[in-house]
């Protein structure tokens, strides 16, 4: 059984999504069950893309006629091997290749993908109807953020294109986004998303530990703990909930048990803000601030984040313990407006 939840389903077109071969017959007909599955997965917050050997403009027009084009991000419609297309999609979305599934009617194509990426779940097009009931296609929670996920990614693509054409430095670009970073105490309704974030975020998890909904809920109800969630907005829209911190408070020491940031925002330079906010709060409260860190093969960026923000290693075993220098007030970058005012609505 595949344990990893699927984050993105990649579809073939000819004889998979529609009946017929577009290059030979312009009147291909959408397979009803495929259309339904695509809409259902979208509601669940599972991203979708395309890998098809076809003419890009022709396929795009056909999918627009079917009202399906907008469901797919980073479509790979070209004559290259599908294993390459799949790799490109995973890289563009910035998710592990093991969280992709690939649907194709041809055994040859599935085998080609499997040969290069054995972690990809390959599904025969005759099994389309079964997709929604597969365990790996059922996210544990469906939150506001999951319903908006595709939209958030599409907004990201727009931003990235603007960035590519931006005439100026990275810092100027970040300034131009007019970002606002919200830091709030987590409430119960934030927890599903918070847990989802702990499950989805690998690169930027400081301990690799995944907290369950119940564990986080117990922490919220306990004065000893503080759970902070962070949201990021900019002029293009919201990125949703992008960060979480779990802090255990004792009289003299606060300990960051978990710090995580969504990998979607690492290029936005907000990774440090939550950490700096906590440092400043600890300074105000007159307590020591420590943080647990468990190195994984993916979270070196977190190690650097701590070290470059005035933390020193005070203990090194399996778990590294950092301690912050709280002798100075940390600055928040000029391009971000940081607020911890309780957000209204939503």
């Amino acid at each position, binding site marked *: 059984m595949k344990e990893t939840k699927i984050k993105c389903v990649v579809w073939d077109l000819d004889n998979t999504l529609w009946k017929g071969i577009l290059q030979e017959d312009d009147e291909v007909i959408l397979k009803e069950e495929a259309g339904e599955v695509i809409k259902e997965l979208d509601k669940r917050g599972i991203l979708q893309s395309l890998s098809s050997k076809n003419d890009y403009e022709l396929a795009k027009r056909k999918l627009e006629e079917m009202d399906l084009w907008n469901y797919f991000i980073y479509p790979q419609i070209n004559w290259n091997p599908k294993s390459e297309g799949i790799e490109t999609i995973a890289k563009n979305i910035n998710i592990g290749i093991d969280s992709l599934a690939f649907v194709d009617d041809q055994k040859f194509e599935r085998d080609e993908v499997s040969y290069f990426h054995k972690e990809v779940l390959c599904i025969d097009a005759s099994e389309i109807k079964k997709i929604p009931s597969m365990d790996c296609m059922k996210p544990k929670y469906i939150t506001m953020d999951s319903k908006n996920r595709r939209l958030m990614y599409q907004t990201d693509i727009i931003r990235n294109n603007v960035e590519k054409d931006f005439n100026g430095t990275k*810092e100027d670009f970040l300034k131009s986004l007019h970002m606002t970073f919200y830091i709030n105490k987590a409430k119960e309704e934030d927890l599903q998303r918070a847990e989802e974030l702990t499950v989805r975020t690998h690169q930027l998890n400081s301990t690799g530990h995944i907290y369950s909904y119940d564990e986080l809920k117990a922490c919220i109800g306990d004065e000893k703990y503080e759970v902070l969630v962070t949201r990021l907005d900019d002029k293009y829209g919201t990125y949703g909930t992008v960060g979480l911190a779990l802090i255990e408070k004792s009289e003299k020491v606060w300990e960051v048990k978990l710090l995580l940031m969504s990998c979607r925002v690492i290029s936005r*330079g907000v990774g440090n803000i939550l950490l700096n906010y906590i440092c400043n709060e600890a300074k105000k409260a007159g307590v020591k601030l420590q943080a647990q860190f468990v190195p994984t093969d993916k979270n070196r960026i977190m190690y650097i984040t701590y070290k470059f923000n*005035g933390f020193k290693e005070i203990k090194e075993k399996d778990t590294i313990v950092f301690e912050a220098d709280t002798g100075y007030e940390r600055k928040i*970058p000029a391009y971000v407006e940081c607020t911890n005012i309780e957000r209204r609505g939503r």
Partner: protein
Amino acid sequence: MKEKIREFLGRFMDESSVGDEDNIFETGLVNSLFALQLVSFIEQEFEISIENEELDIQNFKDIHSIVQLISKKLA
């Protein structure tokens, strides 16, 4: 060496206004990704591997410090 570092920094900031001893992390560019990219760039460009104990802001805070770190590693 300095030129290569400046070229890299130029992708993120207006490097011409950054002096050799100006703190590059105080320009407002407090950014995990930038820090990681800086470290990776140095490792690849100069074919060295930076150990955990060397991952200290003091070694990366300005162009002068970075040059010193690389020279020490290459020596």
